């Protein structure tokens, strides 16, 4: 199914032209002003960093992952232990806010030993360290290969999930980096 046929906010025309009905132009103009990156990305191929969260596989836009690290020493933030951003982590001499991606996505926590990498996510002026189980690949994904996210998901998923992609190992949830930062920023504020 081509989602663009039903939803003018999704662009699937391979030429990059927007399939708009005249009455939606004003709304589109606003949308473009708000999220130009998402629109541009939707029109072309994008590189995604695929990583594991327990039994689940997710991906974030590779352009927003500034570095990957081995896990560094952390300090829990008092009063924030149950929040989505519960700690500070030292990465290469810097202190970075560490987010709990498992909790953010409503996934069960894993044993500390299962965490082997920390992704440094940077978007909209925010930087977060995201501990993950492993980084398996950087995938070059065409928008045509992206399956739309189910509309029946609850919790934070509708806001975060940009779509689904399938490779030889199974399904990968494509997460919006900016949306994730916005969620974490809101949790901090």
């Amino acid at each position, binding site marked *: 199914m081509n989602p663009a046929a039903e939803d003018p906010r999704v662009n699937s025309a391979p030429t990059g032209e927007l399939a708009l009905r005249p009455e939606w132009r004003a709304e589109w103009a606003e949308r473009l002003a708000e999220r130009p990156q998402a629109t541009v990305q939707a029109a072309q191929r994008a590189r995604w960093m695929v990583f594991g969260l327990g039994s689940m596989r997710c991906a974030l836009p590779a352009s927003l992952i500034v570095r990957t690290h081995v896990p*560094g*020493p*952390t*300090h*829990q*933030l*008092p*009063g*924030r*232990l149950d929040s989505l951003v519960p700690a*500070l*982590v*030292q990465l*290469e*001499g*810097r*202190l970075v*806010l560490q987010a709990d991606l498992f909790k953010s996505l409503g996934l069960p926590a894993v044993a500390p030993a299962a965490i082997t990498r920390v992704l440094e996510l940077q978007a909209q002026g*925010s930087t977060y360290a995201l501990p993950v189980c492993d980084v398996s690949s950087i995938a070059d994904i065409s928008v045509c290969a992206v399956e739309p996210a189910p509309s029946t998901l609850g919790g934070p998923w509708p806001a975060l999930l940009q779509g689904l992609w399938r490779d030889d190992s199974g399904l990968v949830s494509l997460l919006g980096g900016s949306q994730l930062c916005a969620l974490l*920023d809101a949790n*901090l*504020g």
Partner: protein
Amino acid sequence: VCAARRQPGVNTMGQDLSNLSLVSLFRAEATVHAATLCQGLLDPPADPGQAGPWFEGLMRAGHSLKGAARIVGLELLVGLAHALEDRIVRDQQLGQWCDGPHVDAMLEAADIFAEVAVREDDEVQPWLDQHASRIQRLQTQIMAHAVAAPAPAAVDMACNTAVPAEAPAKVGPAQVAAAPAPTPAASSSGAGANRVVKLAAQTLDDMLTQAREALLVDEAREREAQDLQRFSRRWRQSMSALDQVIARLGQRATMDSTVQAVVSELSDLRQGMGVNQDLLAALSVSHDRHIRRGRLAARQLYQSVRRTRMTTLDGAILAWRRQVHDLGRRLGRPIELSVHGQHTLIDRDVLDRIESPLNHLLGNAADHGLESVEERVAAGKPAAGQITVRARHVKGQLLLEVSDDGRGINLDALRQRVQERGLASPEVAQRLSDAELYEFLFLPGFSTRSAVSDISGRGVGLDVVRTQVQALGGAVRVSSSLGQGSRFVLALPISVSVLRVLLVQVDAEVYAIGLQDIERVERLSAADLLPMGAQTCAHINRAVMPVVSLASQLGLPAAPAGDHFAVVVVGEAEQARALRVDALLGERNIGLMPLDPRLGGLRHVAAAAILDDGTPVLVLDAHRLGHDQEHGLSNVISEASPQPNPRKRVLVVEDSFTVREVERQVLTAAGYEVDARVDGEDGWQGLMAGHFDLMITDIDMPKLNGIDLLRRVRALPAHRELPVMIVSYKDSAADRKAGLDAGADRYFVKSGFDDRSLLAAVADLIGEP
């Protein structure tokens, strides 16, 4: 000067001048000569024998300014510089230098050049046009005094006074005790040949981060070296084991050809291992050597970058002397300033940020502290008032003391003023200790003087001094002796980036507390604890104080209390409290890193740092811990009685300890349950953490002011209807309108309320308790 001659295009300050315009060159030169004039005019030599070089230095500065102004065609400044030069030459010829109005005029002339120097090139001429009449007036004043000056027979440098024109009594030379007295000539060439470059603070911070990373990499290398040594040891052990196998095989009486072949192969293998062992040993030695060099380089780099942030107080002294000179003139009283410890190191950022508090304290000392000449003479004191600035490092912090030998603080008058302002009932006022009374001096708008002068009472009070010092992580202490004088001590971090701390362990994490906030450290046993109602106290250093778990203050699970435990005492006198910690880990210098601003609401945490082993550590805001007793006690109480309390709950948000305490006591005595918070951000956290029937908030508070707090509260649907009362010293119609517009239900001016009216207003809003 010599350096500039050796290197064309580079001035004495090391600036590359090749790309500067003529006006820019003039401005650069004016900066130097204006400072020379100012310093020289404020510091005439007490010894007449030194008068010659001193006059010549001043004259040279004036002459250079005149020449430079002429080159760029700034005729107004040519005339002013000429007047300066002419005046100095005439005074030298007359052989007398008397401090007086003409010195003020000359200082103001120096200011003119300094002000021009900070303009952009294209702003200079318009600025001069705008100030033409002022410049011409100064020129006339300088020349007129020169004409009127008498002609004594000999140089008399001792008539330099700080006495106003209308009372020209000799009271002795102005002294700047510990300050060096560089001649103008020396200071104009004092910049030396060291190149000066400007760096953005962020660049320095980035360099510091990179240097810190180099240190951390060095730590990792050291761990690798230890692994290498362990591997080398195991290798040797494997070789020994192989030697034993070969030896045992060789001891066999008979060996067939197969065994012989095995022994031969093993021997070859052993030989290869030996060669590898030698290589490994050499590699280990080389690695160690490189590690040592790397460690030294990394540490030197880190120290060097840190040192670039440091300076001494020398650069600030001239401005202080000028301020005291001007204050003395305006107040009509002679004032002497002594500065001790001008070579004390201080972070440039700290120095910049204490300028305003220090100026305020100097103004206070001159205006409030020192008596008139008549009063001083009647009291048997020297006519000239003495203000002393003393700087020194103590326990890893900078103590900056401003004291005077004036009238001191009259505690009875202060107590009376507190009552008159309705800040405490007569009963409460009588019970206030000296330390508590001094606290009122730091309230916004509080003054013991009814008259407001142009020096003090200008709307910038001691509360701002305290706020600014606390923003640096410092503290202000005051002491006074009636008739003897007052002393204000600013306890400041030596650096905003380096702090001497005590590391403590709480809930398996490491926290740091600045040593400047710690009164003492004790080890207590369960037998030392004194149950007092719902709370626990201990007798420490002849004082009874509450003992509170630091874990509970931080909202962390408290470790089971053992028979013996360590406490850290923070806060002074009545505000002291002992914080129970899991372990004391020792003192350390740490490089402070600001917290992510999005963590501004993190309760009790002021900054972060990285320890040498790479571990992050949070630096606690001990000021809050020390001033937040009511919250800590309420924690204890709530732990002891978890039943829901049906009483109406009031959230008091007030940064003044005294006002907060008065409000809490009045409301608690009336039957309300009170949670008191120390600033807007703390109040916000409190509101988020519990249910309240009313919020009472001040306006002027650190971190988040009351208006912004109120706007934040009203933005939440759940709190749109929460009754809010503002209690503030701000009493203008505009202030009241701003408060009510932000959503307050009631606006109370602090000076106008008493216990009864406060309770009536609270009952009106939320009913009886």
